[in-house]
């Protein structure tokens, strides 16, 4: 198990004392869970699935001094486009803060549905063909390529791999066509052989 240096612990405690309690916003998780009917957790926006509090990797108690400084900078990014990279947030969490700014994000806590309207409509961080906004509303992970509403994912992957699928389909159809002719050939040969036996 990874040991946490004493200095890191002390600094973390100091940061916590200054910043108050760790800032996680369950209003969004609750909204997504209710709207989508899917189980979601903090890992949608955070590095750790149990949120920022704790000493596991991706949580506040595990941060180095440099990361704590970065966290402080991210927490102060009240205006949009501050280009911060919070070490307790994943790429989607940072995308939200950088696009909206902390101030607007905090205001959205009372209307979490509005977050979908405020984020860029065409952003697709994991490149799975489903936009981050749709993933947020569907309760699927915007950073996991294999996660998405099954039908949306199926359509997106079908469109993205149409060439390969068409080739495979053509190969299979040709194979089946060949087998059909082979069967027909054997059938004719059997009938000829039976007729020969009967006549001879």
């Amino acid at each position: 198990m990874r040991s946490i240096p004493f200095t890191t612990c002390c600094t973390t405690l100091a940061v916590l004392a200054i910043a108050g309690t760790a800032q996680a916003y369950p209003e969004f998780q609750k909204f997504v869970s209710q709207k989508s009917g899917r189980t979601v957790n903090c890992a949608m926006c955070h590095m750790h699935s149990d949120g920022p509090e704790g000493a596991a990797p991706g949580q506040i108690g595990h941060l180095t001094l440099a990361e704590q400084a970065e966290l402080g900078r991210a927490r102060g990014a009240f205006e949009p486009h501050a280009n911060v990279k919070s070490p307790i947030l994943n790429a989607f969490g940072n995308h939200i803060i950088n696009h909206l700014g902390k101030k607007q994000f905090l205001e959205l806590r009372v209307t979490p549905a509005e977050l979908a309207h405020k984020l860029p409509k065409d952003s697709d961080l994991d490149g799975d063909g489903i936009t981050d906004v749709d993933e947020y509303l569907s309760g699927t992970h915007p950073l996991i390529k294999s996660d998405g509403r099954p039908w949306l994912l199926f359509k997106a992957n079908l469109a993205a791999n149409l060439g390969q699928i068409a080739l495979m389909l053509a190969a299979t159809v040709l194979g089946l066509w060949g087998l059909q002719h082979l069967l027909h050939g054997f059938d004719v040969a059997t009938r000829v052989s039976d007729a020969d036996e009967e006549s001879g």
Partner: protein
Amino acid sequence: MKLHETLRNTEKFLAERLPVEKMNYASMVQKKEVPVHGLAWGYYMGGLAMFFLMVQIATGLMLLFYYQPTVSDAHASVEFITDQVPAGALVRNVHAWASSLMIGSVLAHLLTAFAMKAFEKPRELTWVTGVLLLGITFAFGFTGYLLPWHQIAVNATKIGLQTIEEIGGYLPGQMAEWPRQAKEIIQGEASVGQATLSRFFSLHVIILPLAICGVLGFHLVSVQLHGMSKGIDAKPRHMERFFPTFLLKDLRVWGIAFMVLFILGVCLPFESLFAYPLFEPFDPKGSTPDGIKPEWYFFWVYYPLELLPLWVILVGSTLLAVLLLATPWLFKNTNRQTLRLLAIMAGIYLVIMTLFGENIYHLFKG
């Protein structure tokens, strides 16, 4: 005298079930014929299950090159396969889909063989080995489920193993300890951990494949020796030769199955059917996400287990196992119409519990 008679009867039984004199090219290839009738599609189910098994072996071997069977690296190696290895995501997804399709086709094969009375003398051993293959297939599913070492894998395995221990509560005296001991042997340590993963990995990639080779070998030889069962009471429309006609038709079905599997493998990640927290790496110190349940092919027993007392399920499962193994003797005099009705009822139960088991559970439990 009695022993001598028993031996003679056993020898006679085996001689009828294993007619080795038919083990020649003429009987097994040239003269073998397949009846053609309304239920003849059922003859393709066994071949389809074997096709999916071959896909499982091929994709499983590819996954073996990268998979690390340790609790620290298992999940990371699976992520590496998915994200970094060329075509790794496709191979892994095909492996996941083919496992489900294999179990589906094995169940369909069992039900159609039952409906066609394919277990009739002299095919009793073919049936019994088929039931054993079903058990091995389920064991493949159960052991393979743990290997990615994510939340749903470890927690569902824990629930499964815990159920074994709970059986002890219904057994008398010293026997009450047996299920706990069995669980510890399977688990290998106090909780599901490295020893469990090692054991499940060994079972999944060595022991079960060896077992399936032996049992499937016997099953296939037995099918070839006895030929296809008649399947219906009426006279079949006509007979077709197994080689090459039926074999080519079988290949046609395999071709379609391959196409479906390829499209599923490319377009629909198996994991997308579940919530993403279930596929996060297992963290013994972290919280357990909602929605932990076994694979869909265990729903027929899992949801009743959640609703009814354990002893009811135990009695039911034991009876079902006995019923399946003794089918050739228990249903010897049952007509095909009744068998077909029973198979349809069993099929409906399986479909309902698989698709609506969760709804039924919530209906009763709120």
